[in-house]
């Protein structure tokens, strides 16, 4: 240990130095405060013995400066004094002094005091070390939270909460929200909403939110059903979450017309339909366990469906809403919340509803995350997704020659259309192209080659009989050829199909009646070809059906 002795009297310095060196410590000496500060900044010291009255800079001032120089580390300052003057002693303590030694000192007392102050100084070293470790971990934690928070906000970029028909109030209890509200339009103008509540707060639920959000956006974009969604959420969360963590969720799909809702509720308080007066007209209770509990083979994804009358609004919320408490410790409860819905029943009063909830819990600390979502069930007005209609610029020709082997138990039309769909600009037309080709192909196959009579379809059970007869005749078919020619010219962007067979009979063209009986089971195929093609013609006495389809005319 290194001791700094500051005293203007040489005799004192020599006496103390000798004594302390005998205790086994090294010693520096200064004659006044200025010198002491200079020495301290160069050599430091573990304990300072300081005279009170000195020229140049007195002990009180020196003590203040020394303490300042020492910073976070505790520097014991012991005043050397013969004074019995209590006022000066108090001033010394106020100036940061830690103790006194009297001159001449009692060696045993001096040694004991030095050791005691050394221990305090040692503690202060340890404290500083621990503080540094703590600060390191705290920084690291903050950095990692920032990373997760960044990832989470990126994952939620697709979240569309700004729709005219959607009102939300989201109030997390801590920085990381254990509630998750997701919302996105589907490809059919339909609309999806997810209101979830993970067990716990903080990082863990936020991490669970990542896969859920990504799955939600992917499946919503594909326009899949809520049943498919919840199955996938559950599959992922069961795999990911520890056993004591799960996610209560309400997931719903509103049809583009705003008149149909299908939903799945696992562990979320009853969602509500309310009318324009805020009266509850229907409850959508939880019918399932939360997500992330049951293994996929035991998970129940069955949905509930309801038809919605005009002017109804859907209210979904997490339990933070009804469990919020006022200063008397009373919870809001379902009844309290529904009263508020009545009180602020109109769509335009959502902000008042929120203020009223906020003032209810004013003065208390929010203990749970709060999410409240209101969807006005009107036609969504969301765009219907269109495929890329860009036109192909290269002419092409394709010849497909089929024998019975390619037809029995196979589906050449689907394969052909699937292949064509890989061409730029064709994909947008694949449903219609399939229709045209399937009708043409089946007409040729069923009438020219299999010689089936469509009238069978009109009899009782005739539909099934027709197709089992088709199957039977197809089995015994031999030596047949069906040729499909596809030709595309970019000039007029028309795809031409020629489908011909080597069957003996041609299509009985006169059988086709241009007037369709809507209840009738057959005769619809040629009608569809007529409607969706630009031009069609039976050629070679009904042996060949020629069809032109205009890529510029997607809508009829």
């Amino acid at each position, binding site marked *: 240990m290194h001791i700094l002795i500051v005293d203007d009297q040489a005799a004192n310095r020599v006496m103390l130095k000798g004594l302390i060196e005998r205790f086994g410590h090294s010693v520096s000496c200064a004659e006044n405060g200025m010198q002491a500060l200079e020495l301290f900044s160069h050599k430091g010291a573990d304990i300072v013995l300081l005279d009170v009255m000195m020229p140049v800079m007195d002990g009180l001032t020196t003590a203040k400066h020394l303490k300042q120089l020492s910073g976070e580390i505790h520097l014991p300052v012991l005043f050397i004094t013969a004074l019995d003057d209590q006022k000066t002693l108090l001033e010394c303590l106020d100036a940061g002094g830690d103790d006194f030694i009297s001159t001449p000192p009692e060696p045993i007392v001096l040694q004991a005091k030095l050791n005691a102050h050394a221990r305090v100084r040692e503690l202060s070293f340890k404290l500083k070390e621990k503080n540094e470790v703590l600060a390191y971990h705290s920084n690291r934690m903050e950095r990692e939270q920032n990373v997760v928070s960044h990832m989470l906000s990126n994952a939620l970029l697709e979240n569309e909460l700004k729709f005219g028909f959607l009102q939300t109030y989201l109030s997390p209890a801590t920085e990381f929200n254990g509630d998750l509200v997701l919302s996105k339009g589907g*490809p*059919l103008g*339909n609309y999806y909403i997810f209101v979830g509540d993970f067990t716990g707060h903080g990082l863990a639920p936020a991490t669970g939110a990542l896969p859920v959000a990504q799955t939600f956006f992917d499946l919503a974009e594909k*326009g*899949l*059903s809520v*049943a498919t969604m919840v199955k996938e959420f559950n599959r992922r969360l069961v795999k990911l979450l520890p056993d004591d963590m799960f996610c209560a969720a309400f997931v719903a799909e509103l*049809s583009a*017309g705003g*008149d*149909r809702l*299908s939903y799945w509720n696992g562990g979320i308080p009853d969602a509500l339909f309310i009318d324009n007066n805020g009266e509850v007209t229907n409850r959508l209770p939880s*019918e399932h366990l939360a997500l992330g509990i049951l293994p996929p083979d035991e998970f129940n994804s*069955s*949905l*509930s*469906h309801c038809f919605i009358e005009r002017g109804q609004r859907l209210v979904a919320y997490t339990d933070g809403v009804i469990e919020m408490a006022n200063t008397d410790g009373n919870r809001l409860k379902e009844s309290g919340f529904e009263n508020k819905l009545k009180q602020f029943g109109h769509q335009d009063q959502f902000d008042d509803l929120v203020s009223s909830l906020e003032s209810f819990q004013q003065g208390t600390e929010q203990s749970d995350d709060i999410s409240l979502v209101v969807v006005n069930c009107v036609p969504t007005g969301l765009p*219907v997704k*269109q495929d890329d209609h860009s036109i192909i610029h290269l002419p092409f020709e394709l010849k497909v020659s089929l024998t019975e082997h390619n037809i029995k138990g196979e*589906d050449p039309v*689907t394969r052909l*259309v699937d292949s064509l769909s890989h061409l730029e600009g064709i994909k947008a*037309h*694949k*449903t*219609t192209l*399939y*229709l045209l080709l*399937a*009708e043409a192909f*089946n007409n040729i196959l069923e009438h020219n080659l299999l010689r089936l009579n469509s009238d069978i*379809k009109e009899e009782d059970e005739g*539909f*099934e009989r027709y*197709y089992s007869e*088709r199957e039977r005749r197809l089995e015994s078919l031999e030596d047949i050829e069906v040729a499909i020619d596809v030709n595309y010219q970019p000039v007029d962007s028309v795809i031409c199909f020629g489908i011909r067979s080597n069957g003996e009979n041609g299509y009985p063209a006169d059988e086709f009646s241009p007037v369709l009986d*809507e*209840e009738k*089971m*057959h005769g*619809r*195929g040629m*009608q*569809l070809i007529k*409607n*969706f093609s630009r031009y069609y013609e039976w050629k070679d006495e009904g042996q060949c059906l020629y069809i032109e389809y205009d890529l510029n005319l*997607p*809508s*009829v």
Partner: protein
Amino acid sequence: MSVSREFSNDGKQLIIAIQGKFDFSLVQEFRQAYSHIGDSQPTVIIDLRETEYLDSSALGMLLNMRKSLGSSVKGIQLINAKPDVRRILDISRFDKMFTIA
């Protein structure tokens, strides 16, 4: 599985979803999907969101279903048809016989 059948939780709706191609190759499966619907007069909902292809045989099967179910159901709705599928239903004037939503 290209035809799936599921009753809603309250049993009031039977939802039949058809994936991919809807044509005569599903004749049996489709018929089974709307058999045994019980006496509760459910609404039958045909969900076409994942139907990519359909042809006149599918239209025939839908009409067949309508004839066979008659008044044992509250109604039949065709829902979530993509625009191209919807156009085929419209051209065939299926809106006269089904609710297309």
